């Protein structure tokens, strides 16, 4: 698994939302995508999932361009927002549907879901309740679970810790770390929560005004470096 961005630029009107001359991620890497609001994180993820098309450049997964080859969808699990859910389904119906899209039988789907029982107890969920009636936090849990339980090669998550209660945040962190260590899943996680990102991700890509400002290995000094960056950005915007 290798993802490459080559001379990628995305504009909305005359505004350049993202400009990445060259960037790549290798198999098994866990990357934290950080940056202020409007820095281009969501645009980055939407380009990666082929929900947006770049104005110039190309994005390749395993050497195949997203624009011409949709095979990446069979090895990717993702959750950016509620539009990734099918809200008129119940939790079991939705997860069974996601399983079917990966070619799993119902039995296999539930066997896989059993590994995530501590995060979302599928055996105890109200199977008559529709996703649209769930709280933001619970809906997010379902979305994250749908991205993770098929154990895809690539996982893409946008703000996975936001709206989750503290115990769920801790469990999710453990699940992501385990997926990286045991399954060697490649992950790209966008988050404003620097603490969680530091614990889960081995590499940090910092976006600022649509450009990659830092691309660094996580180390004990990284958190202080990021805090200094955001503090200076804050004081610059205040003046």
């Amino acid at each position: 698994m290798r993802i490459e961005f080559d001379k990628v630029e995305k504009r909305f009107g005359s505004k350049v939302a993202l400009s990445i001359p060259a960037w790549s991620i290798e198999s098994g890497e866990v990357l934290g995508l950080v940056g202020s609001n409007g820095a281009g994180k969501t645009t980055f993820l939407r380009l990666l999932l082929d929900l947006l098309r770049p104005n110039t450049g190309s994005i390749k997964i395993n050497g195949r361009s997203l624009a011409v080859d949709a095979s990446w969808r069979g090895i990717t699990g993702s959750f950016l927002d509620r539009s990734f859910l099918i809200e008129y389904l119940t939790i079991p119906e939705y997860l069974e549907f996601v399983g079917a899209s990966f070619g799993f039988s119902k039995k296999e789907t539930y066997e896989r879901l059993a590994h995530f029982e501590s995060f979302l107890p599928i055996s105890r969920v109200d199977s008559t309740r529709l996703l649209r009636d769930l709280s933001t936090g619970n809906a997010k849990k379902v979305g994250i679970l749908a991205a993770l339980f098929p154990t895809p090669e690539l996982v893409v998550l946008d703000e996975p810790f936001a709206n989750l209660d503290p115990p769920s945040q801790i469990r999710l962190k453990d699940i992501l770390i385990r997926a990286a260590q045991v399954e060697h899943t490649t992950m790209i996680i966008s988050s404003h929560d620097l603490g969680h990102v530091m614990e889960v991700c081995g590499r940090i890509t910092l976006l600022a005004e649509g450009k990659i400002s830092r691309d660094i290995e996580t180390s004990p000094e990284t958190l202080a470096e990021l805090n200094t960056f955001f503090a200076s950005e804050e004081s610059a915007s205040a003046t």
Partner: protein
Amino acid sequence: MRTPSHMTSSTFLGSFGLLAKNQYKIALRSMQMQQGWFVRIVIGLMMVYSAFILLTLGFFFDRFSEELWPSLDPLTVVNRYLLAMFVSMFFVRFLFQKTPKLKIIPYLHLPIRRSSLVAFFQTSSLFSIHNFYPLLFFIPFWMIYVRESPLADNQNMWLAAVVLLIGTSHFVNLLLRAVLQRKAGVFYALMIVFMVTAFIDETSGIGLQQRISEYLFTGILSGGLVEFSLLFCTFSLVTAASTIQLTRSINNPETREEVTRVTTFAVPESWGLVGQLVRLELLLMWRNRRPRHYMLVSLLFSTMYLLFMLSNAKAFSGYTMAALLGLFASGGFALNYGQLMFGWDSEHYTALVTRNIPFKALVKAKLIVLQGSCVVLFVLSLPLFIWFRPEFVPLHFAFLFYNAGITTILVMELASRNSQAVDIGKSGGFFNYEGFSAKHWLWFIPTALPPVLFMLAMHSRPGLGLIGLATFGFISIMLTDMWTKYFAKGLQARKHTMIEGFSKGAN
């Protein structure tokens, strides 16, 4: 913290001015965001044409009434059928008129009295095209035939009665829609009661509707205060009831449709991904307000309405017009629901395109649902054709093949080019076309017109025409795999346009 008293006690007129200014801006921007120029021009031309027809009818009604009712004078004809006219216009109003409730919601947190909000939106809702276009007929008719009539003692009261009837119709619609929003089942009960009553009134020769209409308007024309008061009281009652209903609904908002009991069904796993997608489509229809109404109204058309049309031996005597019956009897659902086949998925389209779901599987599932709907509606309406018009049974068969083979393909072609989102029911009103763009109405021209024109061209040899339609349909059904590949390719090419359009949400 309390809201400052000077804010909540803002003057009634001040609130009106503020709201009017804001609504004007919204209307202006909404107009600028609307359709492309082609659609605007076509809609504009259609409106001018309709206005021309209404004005001509109003000024020269005697020529029309002489043709249809030679023994009656124009004024008697209009008085006799006035209620029926309003009932017909009410259907159009019910389907298209916008209701004020959704417009009020953004203002509820502001320091404006709720009574002022209700008063403003109830009053401004009157500025609807549905309240003005009938006047294009009634004012010229009143000028030419009512004012000049020797039988009329009070011509102005007659016109005032017509305006009151328009107002009544307006508030009945608002009231009915508000009630139906909470109790959708009432709609189907009312539809059935109305159809059965109209059927009995029409076929038994009682003519109750005509008698009431003539009593009211001939009476008013003769200066009858009792008849006018009756109308005035009805108008006042309905206006008050609608206002109370709106006030209640904003004070006790129901944020979403409550689903207390979820019914589900499974498809065999051996049907694979396509089977799961068919299930998804059926659940979408059943669990969401708007698609569900489309499904049920199609069922009502193919049974109750068709019963009404087929039992009237005078109507649809030729094959050209009967083609419309055949088209909608088995293809009503495909024509109505099908053209938004991907729009219904707009809220979760990203859930489909980021998963391992080939476009071919998605298209195939949707075609199965559309073709299946033709078969279901065909079977349901077949007994009516056999019972009332056995001579049209071959036409019904021919249109089964045509609808399943050609109509489904035509609507899918349009659906796969649609990038406008549809609100499937979270906040949408009770069944109506509010929020649908004019473009969708124009789509009926390429989908519904071809077979009618074909049967018109074949009017001297209708049997051959039907064989032709059935053959085209059959060949197209055999080519389903080819169509599937064709639509999948188109969806891939338009993927980003559709995602962008759908992400903007329903208007």
